């Protein structure tokens, strides 16, 4: 039996869970959370079976995707829009880690959301829909289908960020903030989504279809046919969607505010769904993106700048979850930068007429890092959730010394920190060094000095990442308790610690997969002028060799270790006083970092000027100018306002009389017209 033909069930199972939980969850005490969890498990198992079948099948060996005949969704004009399934290596990798991590997060929710009572129904229904959105996006066979799931995820994030928006455990002020954060997340990503949608119009017009098969088959040819500029505009607009969804500069500012939701939701958004969708879109659209080197340069620069500024904002933040949020933005910047650099290499080589391009390190590094990041970021957030669950605050200044009371949490979080900091042989180390290599490649080749600049940014970011992550760990777990009033409930229940342990294994070891399995799966090649995803990878040992024999690996490693050491000296050993470095938080740069480079003000200002101020003007004009004219005319017609007031007698009979007069008048005019016309 071929299971791959049931791929469509993968997003449908969580969708059904959403419906069931939404309709009937209220009748059960646990809000039918078990249905949501079972659906995630089922989705994961089915993903695993489908992936196994695909990787062992003939299609993978031939470098082809599994694409069953799509269903017609709507047809208009000369266009037909479809709904279908598209399974290739990228799909498999994505759906495996998304469903796996979501499954663990769902299980973790049993403990974390245990005290939510009746609202569990809403919670489980929404996270199930969230997962359905992500899995649907992953298996989509065309851009419109993708866009639909993309937006469904947007709504789920809106709902879940605002989960506590009318009754927050921290009080009314926090609930007001949550409502505002949810709105901000939706509106800022909506700006990106409008770009995405416009991109769809451009691409639909250029290709006459939005199916991947039709678009990716021969875009090299369409480029020759003079469609190059159109494709560039279309992909640029698609990338606008990515900037919104994956929180890239300059639309990054919604993600830190999104911490207002439950921590499990943050884990879901940051690790398994939502923000990964943007990176996935770039990877999926690679055949279109690599048509143009300038386009890829823009992508890489946006990624590099994002990685840098987000990491810098994390340096002095005191909120446990906020630091993790900035780190997500920064790591997403890494992925985008890697994809941009790899695409740049392919684009330039294609422009030189190369028909065969053997792999792009950037592509492999970007997707590989996305997977590793999913593991360690889910781990970090769930550890943070465990801490918050135990102490009831997110402020790191009040924590400290929790390591003794929460052994499992502190050790698993240490693994997550080592991984994200790029400590040797943890998963983050391998993918981060591949990213460095990918960015270095065009820089060394002399293709663009911009990449040299990006490489330096990436190195500094690596240092900052190591520093702020260990600052976080030391402030939370090391030393002595800082706040006597803070009560720690001790270690979290098993439903919460078990996912932590499982994830920490992956966060530590998933990097090794690259050497004997993923090296052949996460690849993007040009063979005979056609794009091939998966297969034809480098030998695993070659990759290992390249990483270990590259001097830059050791430079970035040294910087990371220095970051960890600095954090140790400042926050564990207290040998260096942080206050001395920043003059007690009074330096201009310190304040700029705390204010997130004044981006929130910028957003507010734009919304106020272009939105509310104009709206007030329109409203004034409407009341006085337009409606004033209407009332003025009617007053003039009635002779005087006094007479008009008399008409408003309020007696229904009077109105009926006026009506009758009116109708009679109409018929009279009608009659005259007929008579005069007739004769």
């Amino acid at each position, binding site marked *: 039996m071929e299971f791959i033909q049931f791929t469509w069930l993968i997003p449908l199972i969580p969708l059904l869970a959403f419906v069931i939980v939404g309709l009937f969850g209220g009748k059960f005490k646990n809000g039918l959370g078990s249905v949501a969890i079972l659906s995630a498990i089922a989705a994961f198992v089915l993903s695993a079976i489908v992936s196994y079948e695909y990787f062992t099948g003939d299609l993978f060996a031939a470098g082809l995707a599994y694409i069953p005949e799509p269903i017609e969704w709507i047809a208009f004009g000369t266009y037909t829009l479809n709904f279908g399934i598209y399974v290739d290596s990228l799909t498999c990798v994505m759906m495996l880690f998304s469903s796996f991590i979501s499954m663990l997060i769902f299980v973790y929710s049993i403990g974390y959301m245990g005290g939510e009572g009746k609202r569990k129904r809403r919670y489980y229904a929404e996270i199930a829909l969230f997962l359905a959105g992500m899995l649907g996006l992953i298996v989509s066979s065309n851009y419109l289908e993708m866009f639909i799931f993309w937006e469904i995820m947007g709504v789920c994030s809106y709902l879940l960020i605002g989960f506590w928006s009318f009754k927050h455990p921290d009080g009314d002020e926090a609930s007001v903030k949550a*409502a505002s954060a949810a709105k901000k997340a939706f509106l800022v990503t909506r700006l990106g989504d409008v770009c995405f949608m416009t991109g769809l119009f451009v691409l639909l017009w250029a290709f006459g279809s939005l199916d991947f098969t039709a678009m990716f088959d021969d875009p090299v040819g369409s480029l020759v046919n003079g469609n190059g500029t159109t494709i560039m505009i279309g992909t640029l607009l698609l990338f606008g969607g990515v900037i919104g969804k994956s929180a890239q500069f300059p639309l990054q500012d919604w993600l830190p505010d999104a911490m207002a939701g439950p921590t499990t939701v943050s884990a879901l958004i940051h690790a398994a769904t939502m923000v990964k969708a943007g990176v996935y879109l770039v990877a999926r659209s690679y055949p279109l993106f690599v048509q143009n080197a300038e386009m890829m340069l823009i992508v890489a620069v946006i990624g590099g700048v994002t990685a840098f500024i987000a990491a810098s904002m994390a340096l002095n933040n005191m909120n446990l979850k906020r630091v993790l949020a900035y780190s997500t933005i920064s790591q997403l910047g890494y992925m985008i930068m890697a994809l941009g650099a790899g695409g740049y290499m392919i684009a330039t080589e294609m422009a030189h007429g190369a028909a065969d391009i053997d792999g792009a390190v950037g592509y492999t590094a970007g997707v590989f890092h996305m997977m590793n990041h999913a593991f360690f970021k889910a781990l970090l957030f769930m550890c943070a959730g465990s801490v918050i669950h135990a102490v009831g605050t997110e402020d790191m200044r009040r924590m400290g010394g929790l390591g003794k009371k929460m052994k499992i949490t502190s050790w698993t979080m240490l693994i997550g920190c080592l991984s994200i900091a790029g400590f040797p042989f943890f998963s983050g180390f391998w993918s981060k060094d591949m990213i460095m290599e990918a960015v270095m490649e065009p820089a060394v080749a002399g293709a663009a000095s911009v990449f040299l600049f990006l490489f330096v940014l990436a190195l500094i970011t690596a240092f900052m990442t190591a520093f702020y992550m260990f600052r976080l760990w030391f402030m939370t777990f090391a030393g002595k308790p800082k706040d006597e009033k803070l009560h720690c409930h001790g270690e979290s229940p098993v439903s919460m610690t078990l996912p932590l342990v499982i994830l920490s294994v992956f966060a530590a070891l998933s990097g090794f997969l690259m050497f004997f399995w993923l090296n052949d799966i996460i690849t993007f090649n040009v063979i005979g002028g056609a794009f091939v995803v998966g297969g034809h990878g480098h030998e695993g040992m070659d990759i290992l060799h390249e990483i270990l024999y590259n001097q830059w690996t050791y430079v970035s490693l040294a910087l990371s270790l220095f970051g960890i050491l600095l954090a140790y000296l400042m926050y564990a050993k207290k040998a260096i006083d942080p206050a001395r470095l920043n003059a007690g938080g009074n330096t201009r740069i310190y304040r700029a970092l705390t204010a997130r480079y004044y981006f929130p003000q910028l957003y507010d200002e734009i919304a106020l000027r272009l*939105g509310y101020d104009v709206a007030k003007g329109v409203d004034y004009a*409407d009341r006085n100018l337009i409606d004033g004219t209407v009332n003025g005319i009617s007053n003039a017609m009635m002779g005087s306002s006094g007479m008009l007031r008399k008409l408003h007698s309020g007696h229904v009979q009077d109105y009926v009389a006026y009506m009758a007069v009116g109708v009679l008048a109409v018929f009279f005019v009608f009659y005259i017209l007929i008579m005069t016309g007739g004769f």
Partner: protein
Amino acid sequence: MEFFEIDIPFMLLLLVLPLIGTAFCSLVKRDANQGAIMFSGFTLAVALVYVCAMWTTDFTESFSTGWIETKYILINFDLYVDGMSMLMIVLTALLVFLVSIFSSSEKHNPRMFFAMLMAMEVGLMGVYMAHDYFLFYIFWEIVLVPMYFLISGWGGPRRHYAAIKFLIYTHVASLVMLIGIFVMVFEAAGASDQLNFTFSAVAAAAGGFDQLFQTAAFGLLFFGFAVKMPLVPFHTWLPDAHVEAPTAGSVLLAGVMLKMGSYGIIRICLEVLPQGAVAWQPFMIVVAIVAIIYGAYACIAQKDLKKMVAFSSISHMGMVMLAIATLSGMGIGFAIFQMFAHGLITAVLFMVCGICGHNAGTREIPLLGGLAGKMPIFAAFMMFGFLASLGLPGLVGFVAEFGIIMSFFEYLLSIDMIWPIIFALAALLLTAGYYLWAMQRSIFGKETDRIDLSDVHDVNKAEGFSLGVLCALIALFGIMPSIVMKLIEVVPLVISGVIV
């Protein structure tokens, strides 16, 4: 239409059933609400059978019988149904049925209230089926009367002002439209003595209308329809009427009455006066964009939830106008789609506003806050309606929006001027902005202490049923838009050379 081997005049049934309902409701001693539900239910059942038949066999149907015939005039009782009429008929039948249930607990003079609802259904059905200009005009005017009484009899504090404004404003516009009809009929009659008011006679003669005449006649008719839609700057009757109207009135007003305007433009202006349409095309594009943007901005500034929704109707009907103004088959198809989609969505919005005003005691957004805590089901419906209205993919509004902007994009490409697309896109953002901001202030955040919420209650069964049906349909047609598209394909827009 042949059905079970029996020839049933479905079109007449659609007029007669609500007419009997009107008489029934105004004559019974009590339980007028039951009568309204029953007769609107019968009408809906007939409409559903009829639409299923059309869906499976793609027919268009005419009904013709003589009515007034003298030496000088010929007026027939002609009816005609194609895909566009059918969608509007089903929408009318559905909404009248649902508002009858929604308002079934109306205490104030229920006999007249439900009689007015049923009378309005007669008028609306007539407008969407009439195939004779005189008949069309009669039905057009019939619709005004019950709406006037609904506003002035069951409305809010300023109901008399709003009702009379509504009546005079739209009535003046109707007169201009009537003049347009006359000039068209006179022109069509030509040298003949007899004025023939049937659609078919005018359409047959329309080939001989010269461009100047078409442009002039188009202007007269267009003004009449534009006030009805309404387009900026002829819209100010609408927010006033909505704010004062009872919920049932608002739902029908925004859900089906506004569509009379766009229906008229497609059915009469485009089919008979295509060259006039070409001459007016730039103007139509501009007024459409103005309506879209102006309506959206006005929404942001509103404090009354219902007034905001009223302005959002102006913005969304601007989308319909934009689609029509592209003068392409695709654009007009999606204009019809948007008329249908907006009818479903806006019904949810006005019902939600009604519940808010009734249960919380006020619709003033600054006074509300945190309602989701006490009224979770209400909040869920409100959120669903707002998200549908802002064009969330997977719901019916998105399909219309996507198709309309795509048609507009193609039109702009054809005239080699892309930048106006910015306006359509900006509207998407503004729409999301005002809805989300309104939700943030009304149902989310801290529970308000500015009004007394101690004994507030959630949606009741009747309200929940009406809203539930509408939401289910919004989702169904959003996921499977081809169901609606199939009917839109049964609109024979065969004007060679203009609409492709």
